[in-house]
């Protein structure tokens, strides 16, 4: 395991949307084979943009640069669009937040699922449909044969998200990027989908890069966590480590917002973080969190050191 490189290794990723606004400011991520890596943070901190940047799916006009970006040891930063198309949907797949609009309403579930396999593996339509039925059964859909012939509007939100997951698995990808896969679903369905992802991971050895703003989701499923704030990873650690000893004030703030039965006293207000994510203009130096941070000091406006405890727990703060 140690001699093999991480499945996805991103170093110093930067994304710029206009000459003035840099949305991602040096993000590094490592996703190991067979593990779940969660990216957490509030809306607008750049989680989804990072994921899209990895897939090479940024909107036109966005500029991407990085120290390096490797998938299974192969550089994917400078791949041509054609080579990326071969990779996408085959070895790395993605599922989106909104199950209601992620399926094409003009085709049956079966035909759009089969399409993925036909495209990447040059197999016949029937083979694609067989594989689709097999995967629908695997993601816990009863009567897959019937579902294949249905159109997306005939399915519920939870079913559609299962279909999306099954569709992402058509070519046996090594990496699954899930952008808030449970946000649009109700709580019971959320739990089912998370369990499904975890089971699939164990069964298929899938690496999952999961984007969420929900620490409950992180606690359930993550091996590693990266906390993002204003386009930077402010803290990254293994999930157990992060929940046990959060180091960055932002992470602590986030954890304080979550009610934990037994530790919260009746009548005591839940924690909250004052203010909103600042707009980071060009030429911004120092810590992006300093205006909202209770521990801010003059040095925070000058620069922030990257701290590493040597056991994989890294954070970006003056505080130890």
């Amino acid at each position, binding site marked *: 395991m140690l001699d093999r490189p991480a499945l996805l290794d991103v170093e110093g990723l930067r994304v710029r949307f206009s000459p003035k606004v840099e949305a991602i400011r040096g993000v590094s991520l490592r996703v190991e084979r067979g593990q779940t890596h969660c990216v957490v943070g509030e809306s607008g901190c750049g989680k989804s943009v990072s994921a899209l940047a990895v*897939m090479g799916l940024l909107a036109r006009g966005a500029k991407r640069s990085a120290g390096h970006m490797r998938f299974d040891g192969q550089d994917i930063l400078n791949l041509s669009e054609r080579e990326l*198309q071969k990779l*996408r949907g085959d070895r790395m797949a993605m599922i989106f937040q909104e199950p209601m609009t*992620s399926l*094409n309403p003009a085709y049956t579930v079966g035909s759009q699922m089969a399409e993925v396999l036909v495209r990447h593996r040059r197999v016949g339509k029937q083979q694609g449909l067989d594989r689709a039925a097999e995967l629908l059964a695997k993601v816990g859909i009863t009567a897959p044969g019937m579902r294949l012939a249905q159109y997306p509007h005939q399915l519920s939100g939870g079913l559609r998200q299962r279909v999306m997951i099954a*569709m992402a698995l058509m070519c046996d990808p090594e990496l699954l990027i899930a952008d808030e896969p449970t946000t649009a679903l109700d709580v019971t369905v959320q739990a089912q989908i998370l369990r499904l992802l975890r089971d699939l991971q164990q069964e298929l050895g899938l690496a999952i890069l999961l984007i969420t703003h929900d620490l409950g989701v992180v606690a359930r499923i993550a091996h590693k966590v990266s906390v993002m704030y204003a386009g930077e990873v402010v803290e990254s650690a293994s999930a157990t480590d992060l929940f046990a000893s959060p180091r960055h004030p932002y992470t602590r703030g986030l954890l304080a917002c979550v009610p934990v039965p037994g530790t919260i006293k009746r009548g005591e207000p839940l924690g909250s973080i004052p203010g909103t994510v600042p707009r980071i203009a060009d030429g911004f130096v120092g810590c992006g969190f300093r205006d909202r941070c209770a521990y801010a000091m003059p040095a925070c406006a000058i620069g922030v050191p990257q701290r590493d405890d040597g056991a994989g727990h890294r954070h970006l703060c003056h505080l130890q």
Partner: protein
Amino acid sequence: MRFEFRKFAFGLGVVIVLGIALVAVLAPWITPADPFAQNLEARMIPPIWMEGGRAENILGSDQLGRDYFSRLIYGARISMLIGTLVVICSGAIGITLGVVGGFFGGRVDAVVMFIITCRLSIPLILVALTVVSFVGSSLTVVVFTLGLLLWERFAVVARTTTMQVRTLDYISAAWAAGCSLPHILLREVLPNIVHHLIVVATLEMALAILLEAALSFLGLGVPPPLPSWGLMIAEAKDYMYFSPWVIMVPGVALFVLVLGINLLGDGLRDRLGAARDA
């Protein structure tokens, strides 16, 4: 009650359009006489229900003694042929421009909008008249002239609907599944806007048929002796004071066909829209 009427109107539209299309296709087998055969001894015979009518010419005969009923049936051929070909031609141009502009946005879209604006500022009949009078009138010239002029509604509708579809997640999902650009335009975007385009197609077809009739009436459309309805009206206008039916028969036919196509288009719009929202 209102709903019932809508159903009836749609049904009527279907029956009219399919009926006329069928007649057009079967023309050689159902016409009682050769539409080009002149019979100078039997000129201006009134229809069968009028005084002096006779069974050989159900709708009478024209100033050259040609059977009016047969000419009307062959005229349906010309109208349907022109309507269909013009829609195919203008649809290809308009949908391509609209989808490309709507999907790519930015500078590409600005160019497409400029082309559409240019087209909208061209007086249609005037240009059609000029082109036909320079090149000479024939069926092909009429089809291409109208086809090259009538695409702007296709372009506008394709552009706006593409813009709506482009931002939806299934387009991102298609990119994420490794689909190529042509695949996304043709297989993901187009099927989801086609129900809007079908409605436009019916309206354009009605417009093309009317324009052909107008051009033919002005003597710049389909050349005689082809039996176009517009040409029949033009030839009949000299006789309308003494035998009004010569102008009424093709006029009514034209009215019924265009009405049928419009009813069909309205019904399709309601139906396809409702199916989407369900």
